[in-house]
């Protein structure tokens, strides 16, 4: 052992890590060679489906631990379309969690949607794309893409469609969904503001007689405001969220991108 | 002419010990544009006559001389796609050498490897021989090369105990035939005009090692022009590459001869030809101009 110097000095004084840090030493007992292939790059995403539009939004901060990697790392992407910029795309995807997996997942889905067009001569529907995304994720069931994905588009009837996924491909069409670091902060807010949870018609009665406030489809303008509010609040309460807000809005006219700054503290 | 059937398959000898398929492959080479290589004292020149088979071809493109690693050039005459196959094998050889030895492959070794490869295509009935004869020119570095990827540099004044009188590296020129046969050359020529070209190369007395690279470029251009039979063939384009040592113009890399220099050489070549042809009718000279 001495032949290789005191390797243990390497991490004697750092934070604790889950694995022994000593490099495999000369015949020095059992060699620990574990490697954790994931990290969490923070950030948060949010999707809301409207009557004739779908919004996907994400902050643009990328972190590792307490470090900010960059203040501009997009989390929402166009899928498919004519070229690498996604011109004429009709489907959007947001990914949050382990950014490298997210990037690869996005590229895979994008390629598949483009190949679909190449082979079938027509664009892929959101519904088909949603199922395909689930299959991709489950395909790596035992070495998952560590991401929370949300897929958005318009369905056959032109209504806003939103699908959210767990890392191994379980998915569901929903009205709204928040993902990532501040999901637990944003989701209750959405429940209340989008689905009017815990809102009741005043004076409608007591106990079971109390009537829930009826749901009304959100207008695009107010939905955008809702998204902005959700992120402004999340930024206050979560250190991994901030810097910028990127929104992609799908309507029958295509995909529109909106960027607005968030606090950088 | 009676053929006996021994020439119908590769890897079959005829009763008098010939492998006809290899000989036929050589015929394919004999129809190709002339290619030559000249080993000069300070570098190697490769040149090829590209017959313009159609006016629709884009001029200045469709390169026929390829680079292998950075220091080796390959030109072939015969079936062009076969030449490409040959080059891609050469590149594989060079990169596998890099992988194991972590340095550029010496010209002599790549020639030997490729000679074996071409020879293998004469051994089996399931393949046909290469329809190309290939000229390989390279420059083995005279410098002390680091191991690829190494860091650090040793003593500032360099290593001790070197034999300063030792000369290492330098130019190499080889030619591989469809049979797999290869030799090292001072000057090599193949393709349609090889006989004329060989005659011209011999006149240069290359074995004396006095011809410089720049002179080599001029000579190469001239020889291609001399070897071109313009009574039979259409116009041609001249493509030339060269390789010099670290003090020369290409710094050990195989590169295309700069356009300006090539044009100069071509002009000189045409002039030399005209001089020769003075007694002939002058129509030939006019034809060159177009």
């Amino acid at each position, binding site marked *: 052992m001495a032949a290789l110097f005191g390797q243990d000095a390497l991490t004697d004084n750092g934070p604790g890590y889950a694995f022994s840090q000593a490099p495999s030493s000369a015949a020095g007992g059992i060699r620990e060679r574990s490697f954790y292939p994931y990290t969490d790059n923070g950030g948060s995403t949010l999707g809301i489906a409207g009557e004739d539009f779908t919004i996907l939004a994400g902050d643009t901060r990328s972190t590792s*631990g307490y470090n900010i990697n960059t203040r501009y790392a997009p989390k929402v992407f166009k899928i498919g379309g004519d070229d690498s910029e996604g011109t004429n795309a009709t489907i959007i995807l947001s990914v949050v969690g*382990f950014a490298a997996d997210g990037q690869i997942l996005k590229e895979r889905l994008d390629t598949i949607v483009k190949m679909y067009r190449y082979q079938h001569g027509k664009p892929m529907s959101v519904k088909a794309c949603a199922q395909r995304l689930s299959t991709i994720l489950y395909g790596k069931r035992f070495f998952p893409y560590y991401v929370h994905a949300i897929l958005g588009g318009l369905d056959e009837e032109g209504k806003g469609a939103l699908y959210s996924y767990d890392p191994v491909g379980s998915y569901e069409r929903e009205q709204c969904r928040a993902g990532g670091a501040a999901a637990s902060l944003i989701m209750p807010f959405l429940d209340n503001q989008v689905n009017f949870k815990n809102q009741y018609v005043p004076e409608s009665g007591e106990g079971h007689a109390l009537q829930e406030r009826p749901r009304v489809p959100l207008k695009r303008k107010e939905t955008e405001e809702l998204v902005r509010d959700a992120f402004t609040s999340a930024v206050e309460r979560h250190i991994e969220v901030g810097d910028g807000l990127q929104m992609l809005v799908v309507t029958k006219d295509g995909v529109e991108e909106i960027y607005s700054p968030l606090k950088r503290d | 002419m009676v053929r006996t059937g021994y020439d119908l398959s590769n890897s079959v000898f005829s009763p008098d010990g010939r492998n006809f398929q290899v000989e036929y492959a050589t015929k394919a080479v004999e129809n190709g544009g002339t290619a030559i290589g000249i080993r000069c004292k300070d570098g190697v020149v490769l040149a090829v006559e590209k017959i313009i088979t159609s006016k629709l071809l884009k001029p200045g493109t469709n390169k026929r001389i390829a680079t292998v690693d950075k220091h080796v050039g390959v030109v072939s005459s015969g079936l062009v796609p076969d030449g490409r196959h040959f080059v891609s094998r050469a590149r594989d050889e060079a990169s596998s050498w890099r992988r194991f030895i972590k340095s550029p492959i010496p010209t002599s070794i790549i020639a030997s490897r490729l000679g074996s490869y071409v020879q293998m295509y004469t051994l089996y009935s399931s393949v046909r021989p290469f329809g190309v004869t290939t000229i390989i020119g390279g420059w083995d570095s005279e410098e002390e090369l680091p191991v690829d*990827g190494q*860091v*650090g540099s040793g003593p500032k004044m360099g290593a001790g105990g070197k034999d300063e009188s030792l000369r290492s590296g330098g130019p190499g020129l080889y030619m591989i035939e469809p049979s797999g046969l290869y030799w090292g050359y001072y000057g090599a020529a193949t393709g349609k005009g090889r006989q004329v070209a060989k005659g011209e190369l011999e006149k240069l007395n290359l074995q004396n090692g006095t011809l410089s690279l720049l002179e080599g470029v001029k000579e190469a251009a001239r020889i291609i022009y001399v070897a071109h039979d313009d009574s039979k063939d259409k116009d041609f384009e001249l493509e030339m590459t060269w390789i010099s040592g670290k003090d020369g113009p290409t710094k050990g890399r195989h590169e295309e001869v700069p356009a300006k220099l090539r044009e100069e050489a071509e002009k000189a070549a045409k002039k030399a030809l005209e001089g020769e042809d003075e007694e002939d009718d002058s129509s030939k000279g006019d034809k060159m101009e177009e």
Partner: protein
Amino acid sequence: MNHFPQAWGRPRDDIYGHYDASFLQSSGPNQHTQSPVVTGTSVIAVKFKDGVVVAADNLASYGSLARFTDVKRLRTFNDTTVIGFGGDVSDMQYLDRVLSSLDIKESYANDGHHLNAKNLHTYLAKVLYKRRSDFNPLWNQLLVAGTDDDGKPFLSSADLLGTTFSAPTLATGFGAHLAQPLLRRIVPDEAAVGGITQEAAVAAVKECMKVLFYRDARSLDKYSIAVVTNEGIDLKEDEKLEAQSWAFAEGIRGYGTQVS
């Protein structure tokens, strides 16, 4: 990313709790994962209006031993791109060979196409991600600097997990803690890049190298610095830190005989 390349890619106990590694086979075939042994510390880089400045010191450490003091950790590609390597030196050398063979392959076509910094970064990120997915990571964090398809300054990072991000200023290792805040003060965002001259960028980077040498015990006062622009690369590999000042030590009172 922090000061300990050995810790890169590992979950921190204080955040995730102790990781239960029992499901990861600890024996059997196909065990690749190693740990970095000979390592380089920070690489720092900043964009300016015409290009990017990158720097890294010339030290390769062996644990806490300053073992090799002439290790150049900046590598050029194509005269258009500089790659700075932090982390394991043997993996850096491997990537160096990979890049050399890529360079050779690219030059074969001789068709006027060249890989720029952006292309190269995409490629390297793919290599790194592939290796992490094979559980055989290349234990490095790289900064790739140069220009993009439009000739604008390009700077991006890729690490052993395949994570990539791009910013006007970047720093790996200890530099992420010490240099990054200093650099961000000068170039807070992409819009500020246009107002930064080469001189200002070089001065900022040199200042950061000095701060890193003061505070990072596994750094060296000899370093390499490269300026990459559309005109080419100016790489200096044997720079010395200038105008250090340790005189403040005189004023420090603390232990032992100095308590007064």
